[in-house]
Every structure is written in structure tokens, then in C-alpha cells.
């Protein structure tokens, strides 16, 4: 099989460019990121609230979210994990893409100031408030089988079936369910790649606010994370609030924190133009 290799000069030039990107990505962003949001969660201006609802433990929910609106997810009674998926309202083939999100931001640890990308190189959400920074991009949610193994003999609801229901009620199918973001799931990876639940990273009453950067449909599932150490199936309710977020300032944190976010927002702008 004939194959012409690239020249050492071309390889060296590409390597140099990557190393410059990597240096900027690893050294710049952590300095730019703020401390977690304060607890307890401050009240949202009542005039800005569009809708508020309590999702019972074990249940699913979905909502439209227009560009400029935000969703506060508040684990009011502590100890909840909320799985999140999202689709572009105008073209549901564009959806949450966690692998791009972690790859382009050089980290699996999402927190205040980070953004969440779609598969089309555009920003779906800015994490404008986040009290924990303890979320999980890797492990996915519970399934009927994982719950049956963990809670033998107990009737439970699970994240997989919840998201099939969310998709189905929106006219979507199993084919449309992207990899999920687990909010309030303090999962960390050890040197061998093993997953561990670092409960100390979480606080009772943690909340996160996600500002929509395009018109979207958002789906949530409120079930215990597969690594949740509680042997009893006892998911707590969470309060979701859809509200009009303040208009982002020129120096908006999420839009300026990293070179990658800046370029992502440039891609959003070209869609909106």
C-alpha cells in the first residue's frame, strides 16, 4: 500500500501550533474562572420569572428555552442529581455535545464560567452561576438494569427511560438522545481512569444557572446518579425556574473566559446574523 508521509517540517509546524493552543488552554482558563456561586441561592427577581416548577424525585421534565433566558436548577432539599440534554429548537439534529464540550475546554470539570457546546461548534449554554462545580460529563445516567441491581426489589424510575419519554413526547426518538450532563454529581477520575464519588465537593442546596445562547428544547431527569452512595432509592425534588437572564455585558464572563468560548460565540453570531 503506497502512502506518502508528511514532511518532518510540516509535522513540526503542526506540533508547534498545537502546543501553543494547549498552553493557552491549560494556563489561561483556570486563572480566568471565578469561585463557585455563593450559597444559599439568592432569590430571582419575580418580574423576570417566566415559569417555576418542582420536579418530583424520579421524574422527567422538559421546557422550551429561548436565547437570553436562563434555567436555574436548584436541588432545594440537597442530594439530587439532574441529568440534562438539549436540542436546538429550530433543528433538533443539533444537540448537546459533551465530548466537544470537554475537549475544546481542556477539562471534564465544568463550573461557573464554562460553556456547553453543540455538535456544530456553537455554544448552547453558559454556566452563569454554579455553586458546586461538581458535575459529571462521563458516566451517564441510571437504567432499569442499573437500578434493579442497586435497589433490588424496589420499584424505581431511571434516567434512561425518563429521557426516552422526554424525547418521545417531543416527537423525537431513542436516536436523538445525546450523551447526558449530570448536574450535582461529584464524580472524579483517578490516575487509572477509575470513577469515584467525591461527596465533599457537593453542598446541600447546590444550584446551577444555565443561560441559553440559542433557542432550545431542554430535557431533564431527576434520578439518583449510578454512583450515588445512598443505598436507598430516595430522589429528592428539585426546583426549576425559567427566567429572563440579564443581558450579557461586553465583558461577560462566559463569553470572554477562554479563546475557545470566544470562537464558539463567533460561530453563534454567524448563525444569528
Amino acid at each position, binding site marked *: 500500500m503506497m502512502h506518502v508521509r508528511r514532511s518532518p517540517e510540516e509535522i513540526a509546524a*503542526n506540533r508547534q501550533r498545537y502546543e501553543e493552543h494547549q498552553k493557552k488552554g491549560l494556563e489561561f482558563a483556570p486563572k480566568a474562572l471565578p469561585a463557585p456561586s455563593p450559597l444559599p441561592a439568592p432569590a430571582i427577581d419575580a418580574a423576570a420569572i417566566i415559569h417555576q416548577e418542582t420536579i418530583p424525585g424520579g421524574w422527567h421534565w422538559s421546557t422550551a428555552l429561548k436565547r437570553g433566558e436562563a434555567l436555574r436548577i436548584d436541588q432545594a432539599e440537597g442530594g439530587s442529581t439532574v441529568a440534562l440534554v438539549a436540542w436546538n429548537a429550530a433543528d433538533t439534529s443539533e444537540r448537546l455535545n459533551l465530548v466537544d464540550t470537554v475537549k475544546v475546554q481542556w477539562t471534564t470539570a465544568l463550573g461557573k464560567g464554562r460553556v456547553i457546546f453543540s455538535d456544530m461548534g456553537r455554544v448552547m449554554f453558559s454556566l452563569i452561576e454554579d455553586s458546586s462545580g461538581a458535575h459529571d460529563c462521563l458516566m451517564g445516567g441510571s437504567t432499569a438494569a442499573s437500578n434493579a441491581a442497586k435497589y433490588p426489589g424496589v420499584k424505581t424510575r431511571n434516567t434512561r427511560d425518563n429521557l426516552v419519554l422526554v424525547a418521545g413526547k417531543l416527537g423525537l426518538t*431513542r436516536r436523538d438522545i445525546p450523551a447526558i450532563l449530570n448536574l450535582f454529581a461529584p464524580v472524579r477520575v483517578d490516575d487509572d481512569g477509575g470513577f469515584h464519588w467525591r461527596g465533599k465537593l457537593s453542598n446541600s442546596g447546590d444550584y446551577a444557572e444555565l443561560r441559553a445562547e440559542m433557542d432550545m428544547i431542554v430535557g431533564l431527569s431527576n434520578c439518583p446518579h449510578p454512583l450515588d452512595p445512598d443505598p436507598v432509592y430516595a430522589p429528592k425534588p428539585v426546583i426549576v425556574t425559567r427566567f429572563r437572564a440579564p443581558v450579557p455585558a461586553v465583558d461577560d464572563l462566559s463569553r470572554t473566559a477562554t479563546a475557545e468560548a470566544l*470562537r464558539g460565540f463567533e*460561530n453563534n453570531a454567524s448563525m444569528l446574523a
Partner: protein
Amino acid sequence: MTDFIKTSASRSLENAVQEHFIPAEAPWSGIVRKGQTIRIEDSYGQQAIDTLFYRADDFAERYSSQDTMRTQGGAYIGTGTKIISNEGNVMLIMTADSCGRHDTSAGACSCESNTVRFGHGTKYLHACRDNFVLEVTKHGMSKRDIVPNINFFMNVPIKPNGEMTIVDGISASGDYVELVAEMDVLCVISNCPQINNPCNGFDPTPIRVLIWDGED
């Protein structure tokens, strides 16, 4: 190119039922039947091989990186890893791995994500997502069917603080993985064209795929 490496007494280059050479940067797809073993060979070394699996008789059931990681309790792929579908079923089991490090957290490169990672000037470079879109379309699927994939031979260490970077692959010329199919699957490969990061040493190279019938 390297010589054949024997992993089983009954397996030779001569009795493989399929042999495919996939050029640098190109896509490929093919069916692997239950009981068959597929070997994916990094012919020249340090090449990332982006791979997806779909259940052959129901493409809505497909590889799930999150279910695979959750089920085995860890982020990396290696010998013994069960490849799990979005329905929680075992699709394949990795039975041999001469390399030792494969990724399933970083996904495939795309023209769109390249603009974000490396600048808008890198948009018009051939990328894995384009390969996947072309290849799955041959089977009646579309972009919505493309999910996070396995990157065989790609080295993406994740640190305890979450930090994650793509670093030089450790695979050498002739390194291989073998997977035995537990159901009939469609295997879709993008032989990664990325030249902006070290996943393939900034120099994409050809690969080889071999398939054997089950030993019974």
C-alpha cells in the same frame, strides 16, 4: 506495514474472511457477525481510529460511551472491556490489545469543533464527523445517528482535577485491538484525518481491518 501477529492458534492472515486496507483519512463500514472477531490494526503507529458500532438489525441501538464507561467503572478502553449499547446490551468484548490505551471521552474531530479549538482558519480541513456522516448515510442514517465514539489508539489522559488533553499516541507500527462480536453489528470507522493535534502524530496513515469467523 508490519507482519501478521498471531493472537490465537486458529487465526492467520490466510484464514481471515475479510481484509480491508483503509487509506489515510478515509471512512469504512462493514458488518461483523455474532461470534466473529474484528482486528483493527494501526499499521504505521500513532494513528487514531474513530469507531462506532450499531446493532445490525436495529440501528437505533448503538454504541454508548457513557454506558460503556459506567458499566466498567472507568474511563479507558482495554482488554476485557465490554462495548455497551444505549440499551445496556453487550455489543462486543475486547479480547486483545497490544497498545494499552484507548479513549472514549474525547469524541471525533469535526470541521465545526476545529474552528473552536484551533481557529476559524482550520474549518475547511477533512474531519472525522464528515467521514461519519458520509458513511452512515450509506446505511440510511444521518447526522442525528452519530454519537460519541471510541478512539482506538488515541491517548487522552484525564486528571483527578478534570484536566484533559490529547497527547501523543503510544501505539507502534502494527499495534492492534481485537473484539469479538456478541451480536451482529455494523462497524463504522473514520481513519482520523486530524492534523491539528497529536492524536496521529500530525501525519494520518493507513490502517488495516481483518475479520475472522468464530472458533467453534
